[in-house]
């Protein structure tokens, strides 16, 4: 009897614990459903004033990470895409790098190229009803410049000498030196976008936090549950063309395969971005015929940095042999299923100043072999790898170990180089360790990608001439390194358009002829969506989103 009682007690206890746990899950549900979650959501009530009778067009997308606190002046954990779609710049970056007026209606540049006067749009209001004017622009610039060190990667920030409110709708920026990419850099997503005055913390410094995400943009954050979901409602008081959809739901789905399953299930209406799903999954979805798929133009370049300072690549002929030996078409087709596009030059010709008519290196194993012969690396009878002065031709390629494209590409390059007698050693490293190797220029070849639009080509050249990132260091083996880097510095300071193009042409020509990069492919964005989603148009700006043109027609 006693024993039975004991076992009954155990069963009751077990059931009780189990129910408590389940109850715990249930209460979680209550939290999730509550709109009163912590974070920026609670601040954006005005957005939900959408006309209830209006047609409900909700687009649900997934994103690998939480959108972050929507602070326009800070970096991680703020997601680029969210800051980009939420806040607006003075100038927008359009097709082919054309600069388009946004919050600034027009601008004048002084003759000495140092003073920029922006004429602000007069019909713009923030989502809290406050007016967008030169004072609020000043307030934003004040906090950005107070954290100047943090933003020092952006050339224009380092160049700003002073800012000035001329009148309510005119804002003036004076630079220390001439700096031609200034206008282009006003289009970047962070930190040069504008927060409403009421969104600033009391001390006016947004380095740590903001009070609420008040914007002039097309969307307002109306619901937010950190790490789970963010809901954006259309800003019906928006000054420009309003989006066709009236609600955008962003679900956080960290796993790429789960994102694909969510699309198949109908939980989400769009997969968008770079690397958001595996390229195999993209092809499967495309071939299934159930979804529309599209691929953007070139957004940035994937390349190998060739270290000219040491080992076999100190010899130009060996670098040229590399250009001819790698079958890039096979890499693009085989590894990326044609999603990335073959790259013949380090900066794609659709970028400003980059269409300079360079002749592509063809894939030709025989040319590669003869170049190695000329360099003195000969293939001894019966051996697989070439030798010179008794030393085997061995080089190292560093890639990011967990990158689903770099790894198979590295393996394919290894087999390409084996064909011409080069022993390629592959080293897969975690991102941060790989960065460390890059900074130290401690590799023969290293996978790298450019920053893309709207940062290039000017950001590309500054990464080349500034020491510390490993690229400048890798180019020290060039006999003309000094002149090349001087040209790179000069091109950013020149205000004469013809002179600027001339310098860029010379820079791109030298980099190409000296084979200091092996351009492989151009990175693209992909989109997969059901047929009822229409109007998808990829923005030219790498970090912007296509939500303003999308429509739902069920």
């Amino acid at each position, binding site marked *: 009897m006693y*024993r039975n009682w004991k076992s009954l007690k155990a069963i009751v206890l*077990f059931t009780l*614990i*189990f129910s408590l*746990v*389940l109850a*715990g*899950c*249930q209460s*979680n*549900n209550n939290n*999730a*459903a509550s709109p009163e979650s912590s974070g920026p959501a609670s601040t954006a009530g005005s957005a939900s004033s959408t006309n209830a009778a209006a047609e409900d067009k909700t687009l649900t997308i997934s994103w690998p990470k939480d959108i972050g*606190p929507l602070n326009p002046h800070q*970096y*991680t*954990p703020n997601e*680029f895409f969210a800051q980009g779609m939420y806040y607006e710049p003075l100038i927008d970056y359009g097709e082919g790098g054309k600069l388009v007026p946004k919050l600034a209606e027009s601008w004048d540049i002084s003759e000495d190229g140092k003073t920029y006067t922006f004429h602000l749009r007069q019909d713009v209001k923030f989502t809290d009803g406050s007016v967008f004017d030169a004072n609020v622009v000043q307030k934003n610039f004040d906090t950005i410049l107070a*954290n*100047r*060190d*943090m*933003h*020092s*990667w952006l050339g224009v920030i380092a160049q700003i000498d002073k800012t000035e409110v001329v009148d309510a709708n005119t804002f003036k920026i004076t630079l220390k030196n001439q700096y031609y990419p200034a206008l282009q850099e006003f289009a970047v997503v962070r930190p040069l976008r504008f927060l409403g005055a009421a969104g600033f913390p009391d001390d006016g410094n947004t*380095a*740590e*936090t903001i009070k609420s995400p008040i914007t002039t943009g097309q969307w307002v954050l109306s619901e937010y549950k*950190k*790490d*789970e979901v963010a809901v954006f409602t259309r800003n019906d008081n928006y000054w420009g063309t309003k989006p066709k959809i009236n609600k955008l739901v962003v*679900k*956080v*789905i*960290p*796993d790429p*395969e*789960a994102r694909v*399953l*969510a699309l*198949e*299930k109908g*939980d989400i209406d769009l997969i968008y971005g770079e690397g958001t799903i595996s390229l195999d999954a993209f092809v499967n979805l495309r071939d299934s015929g159930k979804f529309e798929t599209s691929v953007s133009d070139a957004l940035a370049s994937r390349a190998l940095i060739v270290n000219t300072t040491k080992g076999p690549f100190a010899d130009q002929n060996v670098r040229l042999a590399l250009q001819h030996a790698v079958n890039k078409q096979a890499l693009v087709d085989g590894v990326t299923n044609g999603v990335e596009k073959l790259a013949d030059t380090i900066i794609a010709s659709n970028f400003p100043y980059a269409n300079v008519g360079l002749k592509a290196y063809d894939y030709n194993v025989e040319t590669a072999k003869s170049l190695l012969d000329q360099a003195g690396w000969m293939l001894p009878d019966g051996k697989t790898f070439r030798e010179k002065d008794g030393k085997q031709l061995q080089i190292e390629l560093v890639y990011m170990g967990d990158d689903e494209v770099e790894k198979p590409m590295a393996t394919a390059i290894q087999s390409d180089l084996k064909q011409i007698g080069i022993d390629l050693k592959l080293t897969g490293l*975690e*991102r*941060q*360790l790989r*960065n*460390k190797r890059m*900074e130290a220029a401690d590799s023969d070849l290293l996978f790298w990608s450019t*920053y893309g639009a709207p940062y290039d080509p000017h*950001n590309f050249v500054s*990464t080349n001439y*500034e020491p*510390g*990132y490993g690229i400048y260091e890798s180019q020290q083996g060039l006999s003309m390194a000094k002149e090349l880097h001087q040209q790179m510095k000069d091109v950013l300071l020149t205000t004469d358009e013809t002179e600027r193009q001339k310098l860029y042409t010379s820079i791109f020509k030298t980099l190409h002829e000296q084979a200091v990069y092996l351009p492989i492919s151009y990175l693209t964005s992909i989109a997969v969506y059901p047929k009822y989603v229409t109007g998808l148009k990829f923005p030219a700006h790498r970090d912007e989103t296509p939500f303003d043109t999308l429509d739902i027609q069920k």
Partner: protein
Amino acid sequence: MKLYSYVWKRILTMVPVLLGASFVSFLLLRLTPVDPAKAYLSVSNIRPTEEAIQAIRSQLGLDVPFWTQYANWLWQLCRFDFGTSFFSKLSVGSEFMNRLPITAALALVSLLLAIAVSVPLGIVSALGKNRPIDHICRFLAFLGASLPQFWLAYMLIYFLSVKMDWFPLQGAESWRYYVLPSFTLAFSLIATYSRLLRAGLLEGLEEPFVLYARARGLGTYAILTKHVLRHAVRPVVTAAGMNLGKLFTGTVIVEQIFGMPGMGGFFLESVFHRDYPVIQSYIFVMAFVFVLGNLAADLIQAWIDPRLTRFEEKGGK
């Protein structure tokens, strides 16, 4: 009273273990060759200028000597303050509080589910040793031990969520969201526990007291459930105690696939970001969970078999 002093002794031994874990994790992190300031800039996709690195280093408190950093952290720990995340800029404590309940619920439900299924399964296979039912259970155990978690998870999602629409796909909003991930986690445990229990039961059936019980006229089922099970369940309890910590730390894949905002994904990301405060606090908390899991297992053992505490006492004198 004996149990009481036993518990106290065990709790006291936790202190040096946790202190050691705190120091080792703190030291190892700082021995890694990557600077968190550079990691922050790299993740933010901005070029690491010297000015920016210095600005971030001082912002993150990395510009003070090692021992000062450690002392600051210990002092914070004494006040139950885990510091501020380098990346989210939120307090690590609040980040944990948002995520720990999800991981804890997932771990506990999986563990309970595993026990609830494996005990009857173990009994059935012991009773039907070498009969078809035992073979079926063995086959299931092999499956559980060999199927990769991520594969099982995708299969469950594909058939039960995408195709049948019985369960939601992503999130942690209600108990329905926990069914598939808990089952995924429990599946391999069921395999281990049911085999452990079967072995224990079969061994127990050979004991002399079983012979006497039979002589008293008890049936096999009664002997098994009332006498042998008590002994046979002990290895399972030990394994479950050890698994509790493992479940807390091993939910990464499942959380990622099922889009559950738990501790796993957060920790993984923090490792890639070199988010020191999160990593060292996570290791500390998980060390605590491991120690607590073992303590709970030992206490249950002691409850099942009070001789254990007596032995400990003798051994202690």
